[in-house]
């Protein structure tokens, strides 16, 4: 095993993946200032992708090197315990980096004739930085700021198509609900501070574990409101109202970015804060809270998606549904073997990241080709773009949780974790929802393969970068079935390490 990095290099290098992203963002701004009217989009996209891949490489290398794992000296706390780098952080940073890379590559073709491309890429990179730091946050202060760092560029990105009413409306709604949620989150943090007198998760855990002597009420409200903040970021009920419009209105790569990376970031922060911050007995049994959230989110997401007319909006609701599944990670958390189900949820987020990004990028491809958005417009697409349709079929069936694709294992490990923790009814609700999800996912497949084309249309030149991104995502989804061992093992090891 290569000698772990931090043996000789200074500790801040553990933050390399996040630094790579922020540096790339700044470089993009510098490049933009040099030739303001987007002289060479390829350069911009190239820099963005390079930065993302660098971050991915670093995160992967650190993870492989065992940085922050229990066997190599435990998690690395930095800057007065404000940041922590351990298995979970690197795992999520790798996920954000890969999704960002995919989105940037795809956007190169998607924005081929738009101006302000530099802003687009820099905003995406900065949002990714925010997410990377969310994964590393070890105090509520850093959590709040990094959450805002991830959200603000997203508001701008969603309303990027300034002249398109859909994008603007989406941006507006996303911003308004976002602002409201961030206010709730801030108020929650203030209450937790009121109850415990500190913002560092370790201290909060200590104070609450020692019995909040009379302040349980305040702590309880605080915890619920903090959970609300995360619920917004992960688009779980009741803070999900922005999601359908935002994903549908936003440019497809941005929807992909939001529904995969930022949702995963929300979960990373939620796992960290709740597992290390709030002890189970502290005035509120937050496992039950997440069970309620999980069930309602799953059910609303899947049932609403069943009768949608537009593919992109259906994907939005399906993304809410999947948020519900990922919530099982916390909903079935028991201090005994909570690591397993948490790890399963992390693995599910990784696989979901790939397949969901892929699906939205396929929608981007369809938009780029000028095909309409409803199921009827997708009819008979397989004859014209077989490879892309195969990729979409892989995404759809993987999201539905069918073998031989990655989504199968991740979903079933989640259900197995729930059953193992004794909440078989949670798995049952998940099962019913995933069966219903099979119905509407196969509506897409039916449209692509089974229906015959209604209108005769020519697709025009295939956008290579976007195509490559979609195919790469599909290959990753398929490979995640045999390769799922690595993912689940690292995830569960990291999760058990996080337990206090």
């Amino acid at each position, binding site marked *: 095993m290569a000698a772990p990095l931090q043996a000789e290099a200074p500790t801040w290098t553990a933050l390399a993946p996040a630094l790579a992203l*922020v540096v790339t963002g700044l470089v993009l*701004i510098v490049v933009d200032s040099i030739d303001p009217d987007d002289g060479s989009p390829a350069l911009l996209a190239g820099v963005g992708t390079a930065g993302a891949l660098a971050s991915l490489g670093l995160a992967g290398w650190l993870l492989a090197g065992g940085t922050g794992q229990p066997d190599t000296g435990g998690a690395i706390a*930095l*800057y*007065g*315990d*404000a*940041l922590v780098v351990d298995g979970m952080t690197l795992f999520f940073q790798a996920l954000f980096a890969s999704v960002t890379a995919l989105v940037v590559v795809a956007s190169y073709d998607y924005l081929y004739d738009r*101006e*302000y491309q530099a*802003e687009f890429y*820099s*905003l995406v990179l*900065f949002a990714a*930085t*925010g997410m990377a*730091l969310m994964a590393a946050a070890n*105090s509520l*202060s*850093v959590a709040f*700021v*990094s959450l*805002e*760092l991830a959200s*603000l*560029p997203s*508001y*701008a990105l969603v*309303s990027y198509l*300034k002249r398109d009413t859909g994008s603007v409306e989406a941006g507006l709604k996303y911003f308004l609900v976002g602002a409201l949620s961030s206010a709730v989150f801030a108020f929650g943090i203030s209450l937790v501070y009121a109850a415990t007198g*500190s*913002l*560092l998760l370790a201290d909060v855990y200590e104070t609450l574990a020692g019995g909040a002597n*009379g*302040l349980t*009420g*305040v702590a*309880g*409200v605080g915890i619920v409101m903090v959970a609300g903040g995360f619920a917004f970021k992960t688009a779980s009920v009741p803070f999900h109202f922005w999601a359908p419009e935002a994903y549908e209105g936003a440019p497809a790569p941005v929807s992909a970015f939001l529904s995969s990376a930022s949702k995963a970031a929300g979960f990373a922060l939620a796992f960290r804060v709740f597992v290390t911050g709030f002890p189970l007995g502290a005035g509120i049994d937050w496992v039950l809270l997440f069970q309620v959230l999980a069930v309602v989110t799953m059910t609303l997401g899947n049932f609403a998606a069943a009768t949608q007319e537009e593919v992109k909006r259906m994907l939005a609701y399906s993304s809410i549904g999947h948020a519900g599944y990922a919530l099982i990670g916390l909903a079935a958390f028991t201090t005994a073997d909570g690591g397993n189900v948490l790890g399963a949820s992390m693995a599910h987020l990784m696989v979901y990241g790939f397949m969901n990004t892929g699906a939205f990028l396929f929608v981007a491809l369809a938009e780029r080709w000028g095909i309409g958005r409803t199921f009827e417009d997708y009819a008979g697409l397989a004859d014209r773009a077989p490879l892309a349709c195969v990729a979409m079929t892989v995404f759809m069936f993987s999201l539905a949780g069918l073998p031989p694709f990655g989504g199968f294992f991740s979903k079933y490990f989640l259900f197995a974790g729930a059953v193992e923790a004794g909440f078989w009814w949670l798995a049952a609700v998940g099962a019913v929802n995933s069966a219903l999800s099979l119905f509407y996912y196969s509506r897409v497949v039916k449209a692509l393969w089974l229906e015959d084309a209604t209108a005769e249309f020519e697709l025009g030149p295939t956008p290579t970068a976007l195509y490559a991104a979609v195919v790469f995502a599909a290959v990753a989804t398929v490979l995640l079935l045999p390769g799922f061992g690595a993912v689940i093992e690292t995830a569960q090891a990291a999760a058990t390490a996080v337990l206090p």
Partner: protein
Amino acid sequence: MSDAGSRPRLKLGGHLVPGLAAVALFAVLAAVFLRASFGEAAGFEEGASITASIGYAMFNVDTGAVSGAVVPAEGFVVAFVLIAVVLDVAIDGAVFLAKRDEGEGGGGVLADGGREIRDRLRGGDD
């Protein structure tokens, strides 16, 4: 265009119903907070300079070598750096969104608070 139009008036009417949700929320919060029992406030150390303490907290300064009383606090250097990046991003986003592309003129929106354009487009009444 009577001048009454420009005087701020309290807008009452049916759309206040959603407000009840806010009142309910307040009721719940108040109920919880009034039941909470707090001990004696610890207060700050006599003669400690709060602003200096905030400064030290802001940059994780090791207060050991510093003279005078210092109020303890956590380190916020990471938050400080991050807030810088956030503000930069906010400016980028805001400028990008607000910048008027060549296509849409829109004229002197600045002087009259946008009323002229509104009247031209919306036909007068408020």
